[in-house]
């Protein structure tokens, strides 16, 4: 086995996903076969190969630090499930 049920539960915690029992089972088996498949990358010797993060080389993209019109509070908040006093409202973080 490439991945255990316990690891799947741990990764679900990192990904902030609440999973049902049958989802944990299905994901354990799916991820196991996908991870077994991607093992084939180890057939390739890659010591000294520079990793590619972006295929088309881009230098840092700078711009002038000028003040420009922005979205504005009401538009920025228009899709929020809950807002109050011009802020996004979330459930209590600290007890």
């Amino acid at each position: 086995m490439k991945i255990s049920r316990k690891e799947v539960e741990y990764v679900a915690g990192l990904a902030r996903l609440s999973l049902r029992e049958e989802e944990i089972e299905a994901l354990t088996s799916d991820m196991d076969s996908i991870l077994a498949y991607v093992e084939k990358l180890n057939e390739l010797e890659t010591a000294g190969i520079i990793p590619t993060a972006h295929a088309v080389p881009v230098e840092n993209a700078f711009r002038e630090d000028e003040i420009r019109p922005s979205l504005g509070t009401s538009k920025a908040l228009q899709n929020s499930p809950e807002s109050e006093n011009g802020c996004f409202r979330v459930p209590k973080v600290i007890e």
Partner: protein
Amino acid sequence: MELTDLTLYELQGLLTRKEVSSTDLTKIYLNRISSVDPRVNAYIRVAEEEALRAAEKADRRLQAGEGHFLTGIPLALKDIFITEAIETTCASRILAGFIPPYDGTAVKRLKAQDAVILGKLNMDEFAMGSSNENSPFGAVKNPWNPACVPGGSSGGSAACVAARMAAAALGTDTGGSIRQPASHCGVVGLKPTYGRVSRYGVIAYASSLDQVGPLTRDIQDCAILLQAVAGYDPLDSTSIDTPVPDYPEEIKKPIKGLKIGRPKEYFIEGLDPDVASAIDRAFATYRDLGAEIIDVSLPHTDYAIACYYLIATAEASSNLARYDGVRFGQRIDPGEGLIEMYRQSRAAGFGTEVKRRIMLGTYALSSGYYDAYYLKAQKVRTLIRQDLTEAFEKVDALLTPVAPSPAFRIGEKTADPLQMYLSDIFTISINLAGTCGLSLPCGQSREGLPIGLQLIGKPFAEEVILRAGYAFEQATEWHLQKAPL
């Protein structure tokens, strides 16, 4: 010949000569959608009021002789493009009710020409899929055979163009999501070079691979639509500031002497015999047109899918972290604090394939596995890119199949995610390498399903593969085939 059968080029002529108004044309398309789409399911949302308003405005521009190329022409957009005041969901429950406060750059550029946006098109949720079966709005049906998939993830875009429910559409391609559905639906689809079209206002899946492109009836239309959306955008720091050629003019140049590579790794055992013979005939056509066919090798092709499903899922797991029930989208709050609100909102909002990819990507990036999976995949990406760079020292373009088989049946591959992933084998390397790829119709299977060929070009050489595609169209009639709807 009906008006909905006409190309962008032909419609532009009719509109400019005032032989038809944009309002009438838009109404004809809206009627066509109401009569045909119940059998195809390409649209998530038809924006009738907005479309008719845009058509009226376009008619005023045309009356005043101020039209641009796309003025008054009805188009449609994959639901991954955010559109001001029109609900945009990326085919996910987690974005139900999301009304974007602004337009993305590609949409802005279409609107600047007074194109008419008919609505938003179905897709695999967050562009994750190869069959358009991963949509809470239901699977899209292939207009050539409703028992078959249209391909994915831009399945709605390809089906919509094939079924004449818009003159052309925009899609996105992360691993083949424009080219593969274009091939399965018998239309033209282009994935431009990474950085050619702005991604600003396009909902992100895998940011180093995603690219916007057109799905159209023919190559000339593809050149016209690419022309409209291509070019540098300061709002996308990965868009490249390099001149945009005059594509509609460039495609008409001759292709005699063009060197076309035949990568042997793309002609594998298991390639559908109808696809193989259609591609063989395409090579013969190119020989007749004066092109030189040269055998080349892309030795790391077999590693592309493994490489892609680590890099794309890793980037997706990071991009999709923003769906947390705070700033937009659905919130499920059981009243057990912030973290539980995140966990429940995401659990209820994402579909199975999206969860699978978030999990895989989170695992590949997690402590202890990063080097073994993500970093390893990035190094293999370098090798895949080098393969293409070396091939392009010998040839101007490559010709390959788009997909190993014509459109498969709905439900055929849903039980095994890995089998589904393998259907992208011929398109994925192009995204990893960041270069451009074009799919155009080149045949039909014995069951009457369309087959596409892929032309792969050097970075920022879209005009070369479009020119090769245009020459093929002049010599054949596959692009004139119409889905029996």
